[in-house]
């Protein structure tokens, strides 16, 4: 009798904790949505949304296609940025996440930051391209340009992107449910803000020559965003130097503070994590590690994709693969290209 009774609340508690921990980026499951969202009823069927996100969907229906595009971008850019690492963003599809993203790991810190940057970036770009009629070009800077320069073009509307992006992606972390995962919420909110700050830093001046006959006598300039892959590379650098934190009382509230360093507040632009990561060498479902067995590695590299590091010293197997590719391509005026087919044998290496 006693055995069965206490297990019930434990299961409930576990469910609540898990549910709270991983709701923040469940909207990334939208990347698999094939449906075009043009009716408010569709908002109910979308995977991975919390109630306030579904409400945003209903009141900003036009925005949803852009948000779905953002989810696809997160997956694509994340997997590309980490293609040379043991952890390579394999589990980012959702809505169920493996422990590598559920626990407050360094990897989840990166994904939260990238997601926050991507949704704001995609919305800002959609304003510029005219895909979103809710918004338009960003403002023309107030400063007077130098002689030979002028403001023109269509600046990326980063203000609207940040406003709507944060409203959507931060919604799960701002739900008022009381739970024991306050530390995780603080962590996710902080890392999301790091991502948005990386986006602000990525707003740069772009110029074009518009003088007579191609001269640069007049340059037209505007404020544009770097590509998302450049922002992801910046965030990866922050990921590699992320700081482990603990949830500790400071004053009347508990805050995240660095664990092993002298007493100082967490910096605005540093990613933080609560749980140390495994080495991702061996497959371990409890930790969300796929392991590197059968992963391709680079024999001639000395970086993280080298066979020694990728295979964790277990060794690797060479194999040859026959590749047919187009070669000797020739452009013919006017206007087509012809190519020949070439067989080629390439040697590849996979981890044991």
């Amino acid at each position, binding site marked *: 009798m006693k055995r069965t009774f206490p297990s019930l609340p434990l299961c409930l508690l576990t469910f609540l904790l898990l549910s709270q921990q991983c709701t923040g980026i469940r909207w990334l499951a939208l990347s698999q949505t094939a449906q075009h969202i043009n009716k408010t009823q569709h908002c109910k069927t979308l995977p991975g949304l919390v109630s306030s996100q579904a409400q945003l969907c209903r009141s900003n229906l036009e925005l949803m296609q852009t948000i779905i595009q953002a989810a696809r971008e997160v997956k694509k850019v994340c997997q590309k940025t980490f293609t040379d690492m043991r952890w390579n963003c394999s589990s980012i599809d959702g809505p169920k996440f493996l422990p590598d993203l559920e626990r407050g790991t360094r990897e989840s810190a990166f994904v939260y930051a990238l997601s926050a940057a991507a949704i704001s970036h995609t919305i800002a770009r959609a304003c510029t391209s005219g895909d979103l009629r809710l918004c338009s070009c960003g403002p023309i800077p107030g400063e007077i340009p130098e002689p030979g320069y002028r403001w023109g073009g*269509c600046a990326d509307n980063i203000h609207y992107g940040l406003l709507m992006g944060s409203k959507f992606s931060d919604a799960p972390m701002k739900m008022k449910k009381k739970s024991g995962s306050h530390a995780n919420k603080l962590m996710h909110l902080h890392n999301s803000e790091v991502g948005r700050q990386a986006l602000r830093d990525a707003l740069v001046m772009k110029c074009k020559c518009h003088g*007579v006959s191609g*001269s640069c006598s007049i340059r037209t300039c505007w404020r544009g965003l770097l590509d998302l892959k450049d922002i992801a590379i910046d965030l990866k650098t922050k990921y590699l130097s992320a700081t482990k934190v603990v949830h500790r009382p400071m004053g009347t509230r508990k805050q995240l503070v660095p664990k092993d360093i002298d007493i100082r507040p967490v910096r605005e632009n540093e990613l933080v994590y609560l749980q140390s990561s495994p080495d991702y060498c061996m497959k371990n479902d409890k930790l969300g590690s796929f392991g590197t067995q059968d992963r391709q590695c680079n024999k001639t590299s000395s970086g993280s994709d080298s066979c020694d590091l990728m295979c964790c010293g277990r060794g690797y197997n060479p194999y040859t693969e026959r590749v047919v590719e187009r070669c000797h*391509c020739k452009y013919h005026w*006017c*206007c087509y*290209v012809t190519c020949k087919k070439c067989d080629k044998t390439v040697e590849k290496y996979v981890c044991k």
Partner: protein
Amino acid sequence: MMLAAFALLLLLLGIGAMPNGHWEHQGTSRCVPIPANMALCQGLGYSSMRMPNLLGHESPAEAVQQSTSWLPLLARECHPHARIFLCSLFAPVCLERIISPCRSLCVSVRDSCAPIMNCYGYPWPRILQCDQFPKDHLMCISSVANLQNGTSNEGRVVPRASCTDCELEEATSSKELLDLFCKSDFVVKVRLSKLNSSSSVLTMFFLGSRLEVLKHGPLLGGEMRSRLTLWLERDATCVGNLTRNHPNGGTFLLTGTVTGKRLLVNKAFSWGKRQRHLNQAARKWKSHRCRG
């Protein structure tokens, strides 16, 4: 004065306010039809172009606006492949991969056209620096490839650069006119009439049915009309100079040189009533013997 006016025209063409709505953002490239008002790149054999183009223009409107300032240069026919070169950048052909001009094509066009641009005070622009284009290989547009496919330039001699534009002259004496006739390759009296509806951006006038050829030079009997028609279509600057004070057309005496299959008008005279010297020279020319 004429050069200044021409430069002013170029300035006006270059400084156009780019409306905000026309700007689109750089992302993946796409195929768009070549706009009908992109006079630079009509009739090249393809009808859609890659956007953004190879000059970084994000919208067709931007590409059209920036391409218009190149039209006067083409009117000078500084190089037979100038248009192919410029349009490979302004309106690149839409294929699965980017086709850029070869460096040799760029160098050839630059060497012929840069002196003409210098006449009007414009250096060869940075955006067309030839170093950025690939040395010749099979996947870029080269002069040789065009020759092999027999475009309309068989054996054409690349013309020597010249700063001279044709001018409408005042006849001062029949003797001077006869000397000019002797030095010219051709002399012809034509009537230019204004087109009522201009289907082409460049051609505003057409050639009257009657040509009075005073001197054929190297041109054969039927060639004079076709060469003049081509000149009328391509040398917009010269035609503009002749008709500035004759907006509805008129009768003109044209003199100039012939290079290969190209006719270049150097001097012209308005043939109106009471043109004593012109009539006198025309009569004397029938029995005139040029010295040397």
